[in-house]
């Protein structure tokens, strides 16, 4: 799979390239500033992009802007955004075009290589990968907190994992239950929250995220 990388710190860039190449990704270009990242994304149209939020020249949210702009020009371009910190505001902006193929993770998560590679593959496949910290912030919002009280502890766990973007199979693996049991929990969650059920894993994820975002 072809990857475009957007990261300005040489140390982290080399680490990411090493991890990605070791897992059979091909890094076609690695940009170290916003404008050249945008150019690389639009010209290469990679299978997936891994992008740091903060990039030169402004050292603000250059990378995020480049990602959003690139998705406006190439709809559905899968992008995984990495950052030293997560901000709900940015998660919303990334999810707002509802095209799928979006990820937003703390840089810490890269250290769990298996999980990280899984997230990159998921985003490349049009799925979603949201950082657990984004989800826990969303779950404590007052608008969401009230209806969530109807959920059982297990259903809440399933909801959290689902909101992070995991498939039913992955959730089943994490919670040591059968996929069928997860399906039952998912049904119950959707009924309790009044959401429309969908067969497609990612559509379900997006519905849950939209709900938690209060839209």
């Amino acid at each position, binding site marked *: 799979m072809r990857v475009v990388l957007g990261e300005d710190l040489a140390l982290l860039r080399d680490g990411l390239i090493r991890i990605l190449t070791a897992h059979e990704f091909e890094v076609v270009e690695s940009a170290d500033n916003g404008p050249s990242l945008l150019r690389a994304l639009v010209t290469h149209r990679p299978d997936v992009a891994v992008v740091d939020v903060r990039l030169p020249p402004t050292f603000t949210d250059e990378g995020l802007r480049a990602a959003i702009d690139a998705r406006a020009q190439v709809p559905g371009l899968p992008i995984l955004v990495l950052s*030293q*910190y997560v901000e709900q505001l940015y998660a919303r*902006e990334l999810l707002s075009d509802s095209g799928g193929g979006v990820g937003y993770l703390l840089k810490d998560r890269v250290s769990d290589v298996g999980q990280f590679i899984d997230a990159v593959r998921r985003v490349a496949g049009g799925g979603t990968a949201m950082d657990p910290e984004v989800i826990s912030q969303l779950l*404590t919002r007052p608008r969401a907190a009230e209806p969530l009280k109807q959920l059982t502890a297990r259903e809440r766990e399933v909801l959290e994992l689902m909101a992070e973007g995991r498939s039913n199979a992955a959730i089943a693996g994490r919670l040591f239950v059968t996929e069928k049991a997860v399906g039952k929990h998912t049904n119950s969650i959707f009924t309790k929250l009044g959401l429309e059920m969908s067969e497609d894993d990612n559509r379900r994820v997006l519905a849950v995220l939209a709900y938690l975002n209060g839209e």
Partner: protein
Amino acid sequence: MANVDTPRPPGRFAQLALSVPLILAGLAGGVSLVLVVLGGLASILWVGVPLLVVFLAVARGLADLHRRWAGRMLGTPIPRPYKPPAKGMWRRARRIAGDSATWRDLTWLLCNATAGVFLVALQLVLFLGVLFYLVAIPIIWQTPAAHLFTQDLGITTIGPRHNAWLTGVEAAICLIIWFLVGKPLMRGHARMARGLLSPGKKARLALRVQQLTEQRTETVDSHAAEVRRIERDLHDGAQARLVALGMNLGLAEELLASDPETARKLLAEARASTGTALSELRDLVRGIHPPVLADRGLDGAIRALALGSALPVDVHIDLPGRPAAPVESAVYFAVAETLANTAKHAHAERAAVTITYAEGRMRVVVRDDGRGGARRGPGGGLHGITRRLAAFDGTVDVDSPVGGPTEVIMEVPCALSSARTSPSSGTD
């Protein structure tokens, strides 16, 4: 929107009603001035001292009353210019005598007893003139012609009716004049009071120096405390974790050949430890300067704050540009603190943050529909905000009647840099 700073100036009729007390106060001021002068002269013989003390106090009282009155008339409060009282009778007396504000007060007493009283009285007389002519109309109407000025002009004769009509016209003219000049006269009176009763240039500078000295001390202190806190957090947190991490890795390296299973455990532990260190560093950075503030300025940072708040917060921000980074940071933390207070104490359903900019001042209003009764106690959150913004000459007003709603109004004078484009996609 209620504004606690400047109540509306009194209306035309309130001014009218107050003109009699104002005239009396002016005259009483004149008498006090005479007695102060007499007391001053007589204090050579000691007997004048009590006279001097009492009537200087009366003069200050009158001056304070007029400061309040003129402040309301002109819409801006007039600060008291006096130096703080000294300890000991002699020193106190010397300080009062040496205070230029005292001499300005006395000058004002003279001006107010003469020109001031004249201005107020003129306004009152104009209005009384209206009443006088109105009362005169029916009387003249019924007065027999013989008692009045009559004149045969050939074509017509001036009779009692004409006299009565004429009086009516005079009443109308008086009313118009009163209507036009009444308010300006009273404002003139207030302006004169402001000119003499507000701090003189020297007193203003002295006051400002005192204020700045206090603020500088506070700013330096709080900055030093902040740096100490950061040092301690780093020392006990991230630094200690990195040391432990190094030890774990070293141990794992040694055990790699002999006991790979334990080495694997140690490595997993080391990785978990980096996660904790990073999360601590993140919290620390948020407390120093939130990254989203650096990325998006006040607009984005306040929106992010609202998203993370425990209660729903409406955000309305209308800033034509970005203020300097220190101002942004101070305002951000002030709003964060206010919202945290609201969530903790106000029992509110909703809150709203409104930021606007006009005439070189940024105005931030944080409003909630809670139970009110918020106070600015020493060491409390509101007190901290006041101190934080004071470093920028900013002010904080709290309007929080018991039963709510609460409004915290912050104003900071600042310049804005030219507007920066910000992405509009989906921030709302």
